[in-house]
């Protein structure tokens, strides 16, 4: 058992590890390359160990709670329940892998101190979101995430990067403003809103029915901007102009999942699914999620730029999570939540491979992928595994989440949702299989070697990180039944919400 003092200190410690790393990196300045690499790696490892330690303790039943009174009647709360551990562990693992990838990827590029500083800051913001114990803390770290990811999006300093940065700010800051209004209103009605499984707004529903509905719409819209729900996804494809590690970790894991995580917290821990249904918001949420899935896939189909196609696929995949939560019931909820992890693994592998193709072979568009299977077997192999996972082929992780989602939809008696899942599976196949075919079956096109030559070790680091995440995609799929696997962890969470 651990002392009560440590249960207080661990959650903020997890958040602050990467902030300290960021400060050291900023102060160290551009020149000290070795120090920066060591600080990055040790911080990532330390964070992973802390998250695992907290995870085991949570499994054993200890509760973690850190409270800091920001304003009279307003508290910053960091706690570690099963759901926050799920998101925190995903971020910690992928941050470690992406750090290795980024160190190799940015071997010769300028401003690396600034990059890695903000990179660590944004991971601590993601940790803050995962560990948030009430809506205000979630909002605080949500806004910090905007502040720390903007420099990464505009990192290259090119006019398109700055335009992408501007559009990113327009969307996310407006989302933040909508969230702030909803938050003030909610605090006016319900006071200090601590997350409680099943929601705490039920008693207020009678008196402030329509107010709660409007607040719910604003909250979902605010989080929906980062989660990339269709009308609010405009910034995501443009932000692909950022360097590969940014689009890998941020737009596949941190930023996009933060939005989805916010929606999960709102539906599960603030309102509770029954109240959402009672307010008549369940069906609209399902429709929004469904049309985002379908339209996202269609847009991805139309896209010829490799990274933009992956971006649109992210837009549609994240809505699986929202769909699972909205459909409700044990199966669908766990299917949605586990997709949080699975989609992260698959998408980060795809972005890693796209980054390597772009860096080493200057491949930007789909038609340049011809015959890369022979030139880079390992990277193309990882790309194929991840692509097949996205389509939902057994025994990969993608299949598991889609299987749970489909059975959940059936259990909840929603054949339409099932239809959406099937069409999206077909659409995924439609925009991923041609890539795989080009990689392996097409004769290699005329490809000039990219100008940057990469040393042996960085090339190995790039390859190994892509392959590692691809391996995870396979391993977690095969060992889904293992008690410590994300699936069982999620089922335990889902049992808490929908017995």
């Amino acid at each position, binding site marked *: 058992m651990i002392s009560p003092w440590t249960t207080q200190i661990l959650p903020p410690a997890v958040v602050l590890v990467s902030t300290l790393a960021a400060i050291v990196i900023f102060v160290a300045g551009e020149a000290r390359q070795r120090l920066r690499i060591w600080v990055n790696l040790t911080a990532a490892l330390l964070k992973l160990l802390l998250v695992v330690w907290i995870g085991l303790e949570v499994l054993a039943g200890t509760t973690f709670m850190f409270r800091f*009174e*920001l*304003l*009279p009647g*307003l508290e910053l709360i960091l706690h570690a329940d099963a759901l926050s551990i799920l998101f925190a562990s995903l971020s910690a693992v992928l941050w470690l892998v992406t750090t290795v990838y980024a160190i190799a990827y940015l071997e010769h590029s300028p401003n690396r101190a*600034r990059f890695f500083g903000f990179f660590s800051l944004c991971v601590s913001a993601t940790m803050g979101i995962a560990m948030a114990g009430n809506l205000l803390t979630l*909002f*605080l770290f949500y*806004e*910090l995430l905007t*502040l720390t990811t*903007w*420099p990464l999006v*505009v*990192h290259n*300093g*090119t006019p398109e*990067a*700055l335009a992408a*940065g*501007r559009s990113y*700010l327009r969307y996310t*800051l*407006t989302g933040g*403003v909508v969230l*702030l*209004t909803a938050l*003030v*209103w909610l*605090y*006016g009605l319900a006071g200090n809103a601590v997350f409680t499984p099943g929601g705490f707004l039920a008693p207020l529903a009678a008196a402030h029915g329509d107010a709660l509905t409007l607040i719910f719409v604003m909250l979902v819209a605010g989080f929906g901007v980062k989660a990339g729900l269709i009308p609010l996804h405009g910034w995501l494809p443009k932000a692909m102009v950022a360097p590969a590690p940014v689009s890998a970790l941020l737009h596949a894991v941190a930023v996009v999942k933060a939005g989805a995580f916010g929606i999960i917290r709102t539906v599960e821990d603030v309102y509770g699914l029954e109240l959402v249904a009672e307010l008549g918001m369940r069906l609209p949420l399902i429709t929004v999620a469904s049309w985002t899935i379908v339209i996202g896939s269609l847009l991805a189909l139309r896209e010829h730029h490799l990274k933009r196609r992956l971006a649109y696929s992210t837009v549609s995949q994240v809505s699986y999570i929202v769909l699972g939560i909205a459909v409700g019931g044990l199966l669908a909820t766990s299917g949605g939540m586990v997709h949080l992890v699975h989609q992260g693994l698959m998408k980060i592998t795809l972005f890693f491979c796209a980054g390597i193709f772009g860096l080493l072979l200057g491949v930007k568009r789909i038609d340049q992928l011809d015959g890369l299977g022979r030139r880079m077997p390992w990277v193309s192999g990882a790309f194929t595994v991840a692509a097949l996972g996205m389509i939902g082929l057994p025994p990969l992780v993608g299949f598991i989440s889609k299987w749970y989602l489909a059975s959940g939809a059936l259990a909840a008696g929603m054949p339409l949702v099932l239809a959406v899942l099937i069409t999206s599976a077909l659409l995924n196949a439609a925009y991923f299989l041609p890539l795989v075919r080009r990689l392996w079956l097409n004769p290699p096109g005329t490809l000039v070697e990219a100008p940057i030559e990469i040393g042996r070790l960085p090339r190995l680091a790039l390859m190994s990180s892509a392959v590692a995440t691809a391996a995870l995609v396979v391993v977690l799929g095969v060992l889904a039944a293992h008690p410590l696997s994300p699936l069982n962890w999620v089922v335990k969470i889902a049992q808490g919400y929908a017995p």
Partner: protein
Amino acid sequence: MTPAAQLLIGLVFVPLSTALVAVLLPPRRRRWAVVLGGLAWPCLLVPLSMAVAREQSVVMVFGGWAPPLGIGWRLDALGLVVLWVHALAGIAALPSAWRRFDPDLPESGPFWSLWMILATGVNLALLAADLFNLYVALELTTLAAVALIATDDGIAALAAAMRYLLLAVLGSLMYVLGVGLVYAQTGSLAMHQPGIEALNNVALVLMLTGLMVKAAIFPLHVWLPHAYSNAPGPVAAIMAAVVGKAALVAFWRIWFETAEAPPAQLADFLGLIGAAALVYGAIAAYLQPRLKMVIAYSSISHFGFLLLLLPLASQQAFQGAGFHLLAHGLAKAAMFLAAANIVVVLGSDSIRHLPGLDKRMPLEAFTLALAGVTLIGLPPSGGFTGKWMLLSAAWETGGWFWLVLIVLSGLMSAAYVFRILALTCFHPARRAVHHLHPRPPKITSLAALTLALLAVVIGLYPHPVLDLLGAGMPGMVR
């Protein structure tokens, strides 16, 4: 005479006697005396803060003649907050002033005496509980400020100083006319008028208009941008941090305290003026070609934001507005000090020279970023606390229009702050700036940085200030 009252006397007479000593000393040896005086009077704030925390306000009357006969002083939480901003910004501006006005410059002799006279004027304006004494204090502050602006010998600075002087005299003229009418109605010049059911509206409007000119609130703000952007660095910092705010505090006091029951339509009208200032200032700040002009117009926008306290006159709104006063003052002083260093090194503060600044002057870029965070009111910073309190006050009093406005104000500030940050940090330095002048000493950038850090840190631990402000609105404290 209570010890706290003696401290009040010290608060005005320490800077005043330093100023007199400075005028007495030969011009070359004034700098040290003023620095000592400038570091001395803030020490009085510590015991005074404890006194105000205990008894809500420290009251003192000159010569024992109770008002309406004599002049009274009163230090309440609001005045104390701005005094703290004045102390911190003043100390932070000293290194920059020390470098800019070394003794062999011809105008450094008068500068150092005027610096202390400005401090006297501001402290007095925050303490005066008598309408005419307030006028005389604001007149002293304005004259000293105009002279300080004129220490920069450029045509733009001299013209800006002249325009500020003329408009300030017009403002004082209206204010004194209002005071005359108050005296005709109530027979007393005290700020707290017992026993009248309502101040006659014409006098109130005249006084408020006069103060709006001095606080440069939207329709009457014409003099501010050129005055702040052409003044020397430390002068602009202290003016942005405190001089405008002293007039605004007087504005609030007259509204809440002297006018017993100000008409509600006037409150909403002034709220609308605040809203217009907010929008106009933000848009103008976004379009300015020069860094200092951007910061100056942002001040106009945030003064409009502070005017929203009138329609939302609740205890929580007062705490929020008072806290925003503190955070905004610190952030603005930090930005002007950073901008001063940038102008010294790059030769001009035009936006075109900013790209690549984060590598040439990292501390200044970081100060601008931190102060920008406070201006936008992003969560951890002091600006957020103020905005949150005002928002919940707006929600409680059902002021939906104000609520949406406050929320949008953050967005509008984000527009011009991120424009500056994108320019300084992420635009590629297209061509090297022709030649860089020698860098000012490190301490000036560190001073600006500490102010910006303070503006963010008080957001994390706002309790002492909020409890202080919670003691009561100027009007409610009888």
